[in-house]
């Protein structure tokens, strides 16, 4: 479905994505995992052909660089937060994007119904909650029934209920045979949705693995946020990675994915490395509902 070969993207002297290559089969789902600034969003933008890059990428055999708009006709894109004119009504937004994607007008109503937004057509975008905006973005992505859905941290701005809704919908899409590529900071989402995980660090592929290898536990995973002295964060993150934890720095401490019955383990690791933990908190737990086939 999608092939990336040596995709490299530089912003001046900074290399945001470096020599990333992978193939993803039809119907598979791939998570892009990594800390902020690891290159997940930039890689997604390269794959969508919305920024210039070196290397090659194709979607369904269509070259993204040479035939960008034809390649994007095969993709539904869901951003981190729906960015569209706030005073536009849902029905108007759907009609506009249906026009861009050459979808039949009836398809707009079907897509809204598919994400549970029927009855909200007269509402303006600004009046929607974060979860509803993401569902609207998903409805827009589904307008032309594309085989590939690309999502850039689709739940990062949502509360636990909103996250659960979006994950539930994505699982349904996966079961229906859609190919998914998504960036995420949350291990529970990756475990629930991904067949495969590409771990990015400073724009490079650190690991190409599976959720089961990345978090080898049958037990539910929870995310612990640890607050340390700013200057020690990089060293502390490295120490945790060496101890086998999945870690990311998000500007507000270290987020560590741990099994629910081993939440103190990262603190012990820090104690061994003489890194003082000033505070810790448990992030919201996401209950991923089972989807009836």
């Amino acid at each position, binding site marked *: 479905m999608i092939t990336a070969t040596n995709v490299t993207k530089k912003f001046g002297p900074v290399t945001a994505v470096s020599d990333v290559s992978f193939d993803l089969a039809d119907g598979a789902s791939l998570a892009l995992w990594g800390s902020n600034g690891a290159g997940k969003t930039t890689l997604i933008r390269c794959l969508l052909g919305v*920024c210039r890059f070196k290397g090659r990428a194709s979607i369904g055999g269509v070259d993204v660089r040479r035939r960008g*708009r034809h390649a994007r006709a095969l993709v539904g894109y869901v951003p981190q937060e729906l960015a569209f004119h706030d005073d536009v009504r849902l029905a108007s937004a759907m009609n506009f994007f249906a026009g861009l994607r050459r979808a039949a007008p009836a398809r707009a109503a079907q897509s809204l119904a598919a994400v549970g937004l029927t009855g909200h057509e007269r509402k303006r975008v600004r009046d929607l909650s974060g979860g509803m905006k993401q569902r609207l973005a998903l409805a827009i992505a589904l307008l032309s*029934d594309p085989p590939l859905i690309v999502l850039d941290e689709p739940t990062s701005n949502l509360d636990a209920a909103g996250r659960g809704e979006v994950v539930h919908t994505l699982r349904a899409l996966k079961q229906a045979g859609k190919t998914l590529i998504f960036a995420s900071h949350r291990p529970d989402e990756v475990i629930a949705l991904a067949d495969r995980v590409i771990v990015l660090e400073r724009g490079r592929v650190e690991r190409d693995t599976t959720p089961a290898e990345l978090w080898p536990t049958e037990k539910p995973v929870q995310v612990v946020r640890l607050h340390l002295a700013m200057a020690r964060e990089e060293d502390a993150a490295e120490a945790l990675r060496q101890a086998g934890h999945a870690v990311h720095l998000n500007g507000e401490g270290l987020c560590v994915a741990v099994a629910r019955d081993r939440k103190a383990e990262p603190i012990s690791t820090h104690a061994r490395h003489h890194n003082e933990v000033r505070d810790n908190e448990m992030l919201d737990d996401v209950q991923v509902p089972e989807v009836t086939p």
Partner: protein
Amino acid sequence: MTALASSAITASDRPLGSAATPARSFVGGIAAFARREFRDAIASRWFLLYTVAFTVLAVGVSFLSLSGVGSHGFAGFGRTAAGLLNLVMLVVPLMALTAGAGAIAGERERGTLIYLLAQPVSRTQLILGKYVGLATALVCSLCIGFGVSAAVLAWRAGGVGITAYAMLVAFTALLALAMLSVGVLISVVSRRSAVATGIALFVWLTLVFVSDLGLMASSILFRLRVQEIFSLAIVNPMQSFKMAVIVNMNASLDVLGPVGAYASFTLGRALPWVLAATIAAWAAVPLVLATILFARRNSP
């Protein structure tokens, strides 16, 4: 959220590389953006403000500049067109430059640009669609202002000089398209909407005030010949517009001094076409440049 309707997620049985709905045709994509831009523009405050302001000023100028001249208090369309000339030269470029300046920079700043570019459209379709939509809205705004003014004039003074008035409307529309192109070019190269608007205001000031003074100073300092002054003058689309409107009022360019006389003498009947072509070039060249620069941008 309920389970997804099966009709929304049936893509998997489709052959790879063939979406159910392939990308829109080139013109279809432009039309889709143009429709949205037009709808957004006419629903916006700037459109309402400019339209009301232009209409009030146009009618006001008609009354103030010509009252007492004719037997009915009006001297017809021809004299009104002359009165409106200076108003148009001030207001219309400002409208068009600021509207164009927000076109791309505004989308970039709101974060909507990346989302639009992630759809099955090209950058060229996006920028041309926005231009067409804004141009249509601007011309509609001008037509409302000129239309109300014309209705008042027709009621009070009949149809005398209506051709000159119609040519004023046509050249005003052309000037608006030219300034909109410049505004869009500014928008493409500006990261932020406020910066784009600031540059647009600076360009407006330069074209309206500074270039005239600069030309006068240069002609004295460098002892420019009359043909050189004329060539430099028509580089400014405002000057081309002014000369074109005066010529079309069947007035002599002698009122502009030796330069006007030189233009009338050397170009004769081709003069209005030369001036129109100059303004048209101002509409085409910045837009082409904006399209190329936008298509070649490294990132959204």
